[in-house]
């Protein structure tokens, strides 16, 4: 899957998996809206006796869907955001480690160059 490589390189595998999940959530939410809209509500359960349709029609209607989707969206956005921040921090640290490693190498090189000079001056 070469077309996903730039995305994977840019965001990392974890972020891509979370993005895919976010897409699945959104798609399923859209699907579910249609399902509820056309549902005959035959799968409704309750521990209380069934009430006439007009009494619970409102509670099963579209009015509650935005709340449901808001919860699912916020939860997934939060998880995605957290994992994204973690992977960004990981990359930053990787860069810090590389910079530190380079600085140490340069320092070691300078020290190695300074040693023979010092020994010739002493001699």
């Amino acid at each position, binding site marked *: 899957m070469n077309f996903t490589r730039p995305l994977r390189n840019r965001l990392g595998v974890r972020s891509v*998996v979370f993005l895919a*999940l976010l897409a699945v959530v959104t798609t399923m939410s859209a699907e579910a809206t249609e399902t509820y809209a056309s549902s005959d509500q035959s799968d*409704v*359960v309750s*521990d209380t006796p069934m009430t006439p349709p007009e009494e619970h029609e409102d509670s099963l*209607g579209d009015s509650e869907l935005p*709340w449901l989707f808001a919860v699912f969206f916020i939860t997934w956005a*939060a998880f995605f955001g957290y994992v994204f921040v973690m992977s960004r921090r990981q990359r930053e640290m990787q860069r*810090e*480690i590389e910079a530190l490693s380079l600085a140490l190498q340069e320092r070691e090189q300078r020290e190695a160059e300074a040693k023979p000079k010092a020994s010739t001056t002493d001699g």
Partner: protein
Amino acid sequence: MPGALIRVGQWGLIVLAVRSAAHPLARLSREWLLFASAALMALTLYLVYFWVPTELNLGISQRIFYFHVPLAWLGMLSMVFVAGASVAYLITGKDKWDNLAYATAELGVLFASLILITGVIWARGDLGWWWTWDAKLTTTLILWFIYVGYLMIRSYAPKGSQGARYGAVVGLMGAIDAPIIYMATVWWNTAHPELNTGPLAEDVDALGSGRIYATLLISAVNFTVLYAYMLVERYSLRQTETALDELYQTAA
């Protein structure tokens, strides 16, 4: 002297590399956790949206329950982890316990925030209000403040063992809140539904259907696997952060 410093630095880098690259087995288990949680999430979404029946009294918004309850369970679990790791740190003084406490506290903030947000939205959709100062909601808000307080103390306290000790004490004291939250509906009259999960659940029949139990169980397993993945990642990141801090201090 500079040569010795360089050797210390190189030693530090080796430690860092070992810690950040992680053992292949640990890396493999992380990937498994990620893909397992992704697969379980797809299953949970299918169950929540298409398979589980709609609860008659609460309507469609009751489906928030399949996210809200597992989030609450993991928020509480975080508090237990923070307290356990804090005790272990105070006894042994080993950094790995402090790192675990820090990682779980950070996850605790995330989960406690989501408990509050999902609960508030559910209440608004179902009962018509956003917030009420009843015992369950208030103690959960206190839990959130404890986690945030823990992280603030860790940010402002001195680096090293002193800051870790302050954090451990706060983490330990915060654990008192977890059983209070769980028992709030038993001890006080609250607007929150009665206990229908956990060891003291009495109102289990109110859930009504075996499918509801099954969906809740799978959702709880799913979030627990996701939590485990995030914890392993955050713990490893925290270890690297600690090692990097030590390295900077040594080099400075």
